[in-house]
């Protein structure tokens, strides 16, 4: 039985870090609690940034509610630079050293920068991750643009495209793959969303990449595609994925790389030698953990719901004493997106799915629930404008129900199993 902690340091002051801080206090932790954040802002919420904030409906101040009696010491604009596992100390950029009994690493991810730095430096070229990004891009979108070129076939790219169409800005969306959103939704559903985007006026280009950008006076003026086409534009948003903020852990002895910070089922960080790093936990986008709903395959989940749930599990386990009192992180990944007037929700992970069945509604109506199967088991379900049934599918996924999971149901077409 380890001694109860007196000093807890949380590195990363976003959704996961703040949720962990709240959970620690709710569970009676009365000691010193320090949150270290690289950004200058109080913890804020990111989902509205690509939607209402860009659109100009909300201000970029999406500060998350913080309990007035949290009694946490916040250090904003102060990235952690080094971790000394043996000495149990976190070092920050200003040279300050924060000793801890328990440490939570929740440093998340950042937007993957455009690979050509000279092009990335052109005015009019953006990435979108932080509220400052959203504020700058939002202001730019409201300056009567010629055309926005979006690069990336993921949800951020599509949400920004949708926002641009709401603002009546011409949009070209460049997707490297043959189908958009396929990684999350599979080709069939991804294709459906692509179709809707086209109908809403998005110039969607599949299997299309940028060869180079053109600028004049330091401003973006056009992009040249690999097939030689030239598109004039004054705004480019690179939504080409994320990088995990693990560089500060170099040399710490923790097992961390581009795939994330490796942790065990109890959110405990692991060392490169595979042993548990005593007192060190991880949560949120940066953590790579064994997913019990997928035979403990390692996964890093960049979803809002996981960040909160994992932070709560990590907080409980930080105070648990020893492993016998810890609980598994068994969150079932889920996320939602709003774009082009559709609400898309997904529970489970579609990766590796080998079967799909429409279980409610239809592709034609664009209102449906689709279940995903893998090896005869139900692993995920996606809803487009019909999320109310998802809890039943969530239960089926948790139970690893045979695929297709729920038959003879309301509003159910004849079930036909197809490729996802």
């Amino acid at each position: 039985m380890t001694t109860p902690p007196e000093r807890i340091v949380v590195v990363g002051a976003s959704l996961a870090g703040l949720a962990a801080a709240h959970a620690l206090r709710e569970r009676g932790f009365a000691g010193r609690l320090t949150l270290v954040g690289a950004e200058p802002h109080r913890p804020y919420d990111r989902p509205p940034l690509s939607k209402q904030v860009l659109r100009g409906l909300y201000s970029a101040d999406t500060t998350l509610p913080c309990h007035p009696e949290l009694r946490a010491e916040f250090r904003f604009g102060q990235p952690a630079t080094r971790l000394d596992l043996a000495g149990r100390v976190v070092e920050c950029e200003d040279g300050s050293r924060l000793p801890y009994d328990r440490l939570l690493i929740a440093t998340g991810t950042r937007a993957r920068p455009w690979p050509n730095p000279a092009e990335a430096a052109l005015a009019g070229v953006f990435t979108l991750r932080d509220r400052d990004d959203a504020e700058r891009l939002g202001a730019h979108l409201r300056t009567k643009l010629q055309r926005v070129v979006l690069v990336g076939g993921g949800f951020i790219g599509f949400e920004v495209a949708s926002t641009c169409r709401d603002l009546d800005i011409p949009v070209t969306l460049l997707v490297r793959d043959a189908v958009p959103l396929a990684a999350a939704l599979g080709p069939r559903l991804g294709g459906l969303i692509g179709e809707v985007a086209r109908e809403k006026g998005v110039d969607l280009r599949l299997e299309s990449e940028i060869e180079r950008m053109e600028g004049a006076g330091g401003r973006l003026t056009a992009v040249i595609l690999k097939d030689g086409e030239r598109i004039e534009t004054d705004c480019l948003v690179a939504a080409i994925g994320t990088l995990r903020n693990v560089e500060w852990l170099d040399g710490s002895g923790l097992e961390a790389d581009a795939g994330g910070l490796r942790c065990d089922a109890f959110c405990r960080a692991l060392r490169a030698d595979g042993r548990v790093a005593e007192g060190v936990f991880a949560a949120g986008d940066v953590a790579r953990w064994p997913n019990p709903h997928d035979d403990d395959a390692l996964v890093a989940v960049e979803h809002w719901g996981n960040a909160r749930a994992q932070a709560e599990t990590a907080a409980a386990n930080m105070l648990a004493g020893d492993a016998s009192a810890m609980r598994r992180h068994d969150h079932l990944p889920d996320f939602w997106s709003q774009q082009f007037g559709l609400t898309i929700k997904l529970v489970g992970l579609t990766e590796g799915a080998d079967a799909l069945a429409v279980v409610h509604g239809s592709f034609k109506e664009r209102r449906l629930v689709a279940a995903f199967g893998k090896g005869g088991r139900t692993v995920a379900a996606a809803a487009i404008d019909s999320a109310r049934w998802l809890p039943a599918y969530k239960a089926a996924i948790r139970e690893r129900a045979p695929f297709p999971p729920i038959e003879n149901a309301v509003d159910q077409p004849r079930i036909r199993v197809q490729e996802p």
Partner: protein
Amino acid sequence: MSGSTLFDQILDPANRANPYPLYAELRKIPVARQEDGTYVVSTHAELARLISDPRISSDDLPDPQKFRWTGHPVTDLLVRPVRAEIRKRHPPFIFRDPPDHDRLRGQVMRCFTPERVRGMRAKTQEITDDLIGKMRGKTQIDLVDDFSYPLPVTVICELLGVPAEDEAQFHGWATQLATALEPNRRSDEETRAKNEVCFTEIADYLQGLIKEKRKDPQDDILSDLAIDREGMNDFDLIATAVLLLVAGHETTVNLITNGMLTLLRFPEHGERLRAEPEIAPRLIEELLRYEPPVHYRTRLALTDIPVAGITIPKDAPVIFLLAAANRDPLRFPDPDRFDPDRPDNRHLGFGGGLHYCVGAPLARIEAEVALISLVRRLKGVSLTEDPPPYRPGASLRGPRHLRLALEGVAEE
């Protein structure tokens, strides 16, 4: 009542005043088969799960009854069968499944805007002040007749756009049609015959009103629905309007009356609400858990459904006993205690899943305005009989009268 099932006992008016011990008994078997093949779900975990289960249908209305002959061929062979067929094909959306349910509910939600609902607060306060004003000089009131009934009727009529002079008539219709929510009563032939007559009257009335709204649209829900181009046909529109009307006040009357009854039974909470009106939202959530206006809803199993160690068979009627789940000790510690400070109060007072109460925001406003005003203005108020007499319904459960003695009425 020996030999009768637990659910029969719940339906028995003798147990209306305090069904909670029966609910506790029922919860011993989370999904309990009754002798007639009905399955009663009474625990929170199972109910929360089944209420979002697509294998359970809300389309459980019985076929319209066979009619007694009137001897008028046009009536017997044409008018009544046609009307019955229309009713069968266009039931209100609480008795429908997706996709029809979603389409109709979506159209209603578009009219039930947050601005419009919030805008009803001032009107609710005005009606409340007026009704309380009329209690001046009285030493005895019946809260139900003098307050809890007229308030929501006036509010829902205003919101829908029913002229004030027709309210009394609506009140009568709504009371009668509310019996359709009681499975034992809606299968009783006499009740059904009355409902048929009543529905015909209200449908004829609404048909006329809709015509007027189309000619001269006003800022009300019926006008919005009537002129919505992608809107519903007249049969669905009438069924929807009837639903909003019945659901809009047969439920709220219970919430307000149960609220006052609870505050008088636990006067420290009445005192607290008077001193700190800002606790009203939490207090009302607890009220929705502790004494919900709707105790159960009925469903139909479309297929065999394994749950809690048993299988609900295909075609079995299912009862969602919301009020029992709200007192489930596995979900709510010390569940029989009325505690407005209860954390994480995820009650089922407004149901759940895709049929979650459309009017929840309105009900919350009405209850808030009503209860705050009552505790602030009624002086020296006490119950003259406890338990009070109850209305016959076991689902829409609430006092028929709540007779109170009072010493006076404070000014606004």
